């Protein structure tokens, strides 16, 4: 057995909280298989354009509790950018590899779907935007062929193209349905219409504006992304934060979860034609946004998370939280007592636990399919209250995802009540360089959609050289198509809303 494989095996015995193993390209598959079969999850794959001779690929495997993050680093020649595919071991790995193929030009050998993922057809084929030498504005390919959809053919099957421009004010995505009567045979989602090159925008940016940028990766996850980014930077620079800081950050994170879950619960009812519940949910959401403004000075809770701390202006009062809880229960009871709404939710868009596990689904969708995945549990940064219970359901249908959101609102309110009753300062910013600076770090945060993962690297001059962002939507989007099988077309908006995945977080 080679040295790096022995080291990987050793990791599984010693179980340190952080570890980096350099593996040879030929040992990658074995090392990855070892980690995956030991219950680790592939959370992130990042390409790195290190120098003129080599490209480096970082595979981040995470597990917990206790919090464990193991990285496999593989160096390959720039002249022969190939890597053995892990797609047969893990579906998320296959997605990451296709992303790597587009952005870095690294060919995954043995990949079952060696097709572009991020870049649409009109981008030049040999252009890989994350390479250091890539032109910022390459010539477009005007002769690009339309996307080769794998068409479903047969008697009575017809196609419905929807988007990328939709009737509502939502982000762009193209959905192609193949339908018999009203039953969906297959759905294919085309995303990345808003690929902005966010990761590249981070490179070389000063830390202050990098934090601002991280708050704007996905507008509704300002806290989730900025906190994950902040924690990654702190880990890289060896900054330890005070326990009070963690509590303040947790308050922000739960506030973000609250307003988004409340809006989703209302929107789900609205999509079932029950506008009454949505009207009340929107009122409650507005109240939560105003609460955010009181707490942070910004309705979307931007500006609260800072390096080495958190800055709050005030805390929500227990009375606020109680009232919000009461109003929310009224809305949920209204929805539950409507038999038509419950009928629409029940059994619609089922994602089984096996499917969810194989796809690598995260967050609300995973918990609604019976997978106990929650970064607050596996990668905690704060001491959760003893009463914290992960909201889970088994059915995997729209109702289960609705229910998980309702339960999480309750759990968040309980957590907030606990955090605000702990005494301490309103804002804490302290830079205590405890550990040595490792120049790289990871941040994992359970945002309201699921686990947000950031990995940052600094170069020798201490500037940001690489930021890799994984929004839970990137890993969860494929589940939507699977859950839609045998669903009817008019129920698609309901199923889509029950996942409510981010376009911005996916497209990056």
């Amino acid at each position, binding site marked *: 057995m080679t040295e790096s494989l022995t080291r990987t095996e050793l990791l599984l015995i010693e179980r340190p909280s952080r570890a980096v193993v350099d593996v040879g390209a030929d040992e990658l598959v074995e090392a990855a298989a070892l980690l995956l079969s030991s219950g680790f999850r592939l959370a992130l794959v990042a390409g790195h354009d290190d120098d003129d001779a080599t490209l480096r690929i970082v595979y981040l495997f995470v597990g917990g509790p206790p919090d464990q993050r193991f990285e496999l680093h593989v160096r390959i020649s720039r002249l022969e950018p190939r890597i053995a595919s892990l797609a047969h071991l893990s579906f998320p790995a296959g997605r990451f590899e296709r992303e790597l193929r587009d952005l870095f030009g690294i060919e995954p050998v043995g990949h079952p779907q060696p097709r572009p993922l991020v870049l649409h057809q009109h981008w030049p084929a040999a252009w890989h935007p994350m390479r250091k030498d890539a032109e910022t504005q390459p010539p477009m390919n005007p002769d690009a062929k339309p996307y080769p959809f794998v068409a479903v053919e047969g008697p009575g099957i*017809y*196609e*419905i*193209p*929807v988007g990328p421009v*939709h*009737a*509502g004010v939502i982000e762009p995505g193209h959905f192609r349905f193949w339908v018999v009567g*009203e039953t969906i045979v297959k759905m294919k989602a085309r995303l990345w219409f808003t690929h902005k090159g966010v990761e590249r925008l981070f490179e070389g940016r000063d830390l202050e504006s990098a934090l601002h940028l991280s708050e704007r990766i996905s507008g509704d996850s300002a806290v989730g992304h900025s906190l994950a980014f902040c924690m990654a930077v702190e880990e890289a620079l060896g900054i330890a934060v005070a326990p009070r800081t963690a509590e303040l950050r947790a308050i922000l994170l739960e506030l973000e979860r609250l307003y988004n879950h409340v809006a989703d619960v209302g929107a789900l*009812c609205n*999509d*079932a*034609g*029950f*506008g*009454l519940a949505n*009207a*009340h949910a929107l*009122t409650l959401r507005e109240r939560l946004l105003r609460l955010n403004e009181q707490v942070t000075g910004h309705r979307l809770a931007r500006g609260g998370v800072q390096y080495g701390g958190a800055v709050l202006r005030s805390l929500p009062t227990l009375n606020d939280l109680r009232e919000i809880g009461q109003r929310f229960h009224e809305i949920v009871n209204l929805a539950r007592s*409507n038999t*038509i*709404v419950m*009928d*629409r939710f029940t059994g619609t868009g089922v994602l089984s636990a096996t499917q969810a596990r194989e796809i690598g689904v995260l967050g609300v969708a995973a918990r609604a399919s019976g997978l106990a995945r929650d970064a607050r549990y596996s990668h905690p940064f704060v001491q959760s209250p003893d009463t914290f219970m992960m909201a889970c359901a088994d059915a995997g249908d729209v109702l289960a995802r609705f229910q998980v959101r309702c339960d999480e609102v309750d759990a968040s309110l309980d957590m907030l009540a606990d955090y605000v009753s702990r005494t301490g300062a309103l804002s804490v910013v302290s830079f205590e360089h405890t550990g040595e600076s490792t120049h790289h770090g990871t941040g994992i945060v359970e945002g309201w959609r699921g686990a947000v993962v950031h990995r940052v690297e600094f170069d020798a001059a201490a500037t940001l050289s690489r930021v890799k962002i994984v929004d839970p939507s990137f890993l969860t989007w494929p589940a939507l198509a699977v859950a839609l099988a045998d669903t*009817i*077309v*008019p*129920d*698609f*908006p*309901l199923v889509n809303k029950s996942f409510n995945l981010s376009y911005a977080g996916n497209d990056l």
Partner: protein
Amino acid sequence: MNSVESVCVAGLVAIVQIGAVLVGGPLLLGVMRKVRSRLEGRRGAPIHQPLLDLRKLITKQRLRPFEASWVFGFGPVILVATVAAVAAISPLATTRPPLGQSSDFFAIIFVLLLGSVFLALGALDTGTPFGGMGSSRAMTVGALAEPALLVAILAMSIPAHTSNLPALVRIGLAHPVVIASPARLLALGSFLVVILAESGRLPVDNPSTHLELTMIHEAMVLEYAGPDLGLTMLGESMRLVLLLGLLVNLLVPWGVADRPGALAFVIGLVALVGKVLLAGVAIAVFEVFSAKLRLFRLPELLAGGFILAVLGAVTAVVSR
């Protein structure tokens, strides 16, 4: 009264009835939206907002899909024209509308259906998937709703020995017992279900959704813009008022003018407005607490309507 005079009176009645339906349609829509908004705790748009929308749409540029044929432009016109024609001869404000003897319940339902059929054809004409999807759904709903309606009319016609609409209303006025008969009540229940289905209200269709994949009626008219869209909206709202007007006059005919004379006609008109307003508000209140049924549950609802109609017809036959 000489014949010239009677023709003039008849023309006036027709014009007033058409005008009432023309203005009443958009206004009723505005009232229903307002009621919904208020009950949901929102302020809502002003009641005359649909009229403003209409003015905006009518003054816009006419824009039609490149490959659409004359059928596409014909749809909205036929819709408005058929509703207006039926409005002229229906017993709305008076039981003696012009050409009242030809105002047969079966006939006017099929005349109204012409508008729906042309809208569906217009949607197919564009060749877009949404048009096809919308018209397929609308025709499915229609195919399930029409039989219920036909049997309902049959149930009302058997005791009255006529399917002439003014006669049906007059009989209700003269013998209120007929209205309270199970045949009439069951048939009108069925008629109400059909009205909700045909005019795209909850729980069959969600008139306020922007989600193109769930739409029935809205998907069908998705390609219409400007004046065409305005006419479609106008025609739809007129049809709702017309059908509600018929429903309330069959259920509570009191107030409708049963003798010639201007005063009686005006009273009839006011009574009609009041009754239709009440019916519209009742539907809006129902909609607030309702939700949209799953598409595949619609046959159950419409089958329910059909059963009501059949029961009505059976009781009508048995109690002869």
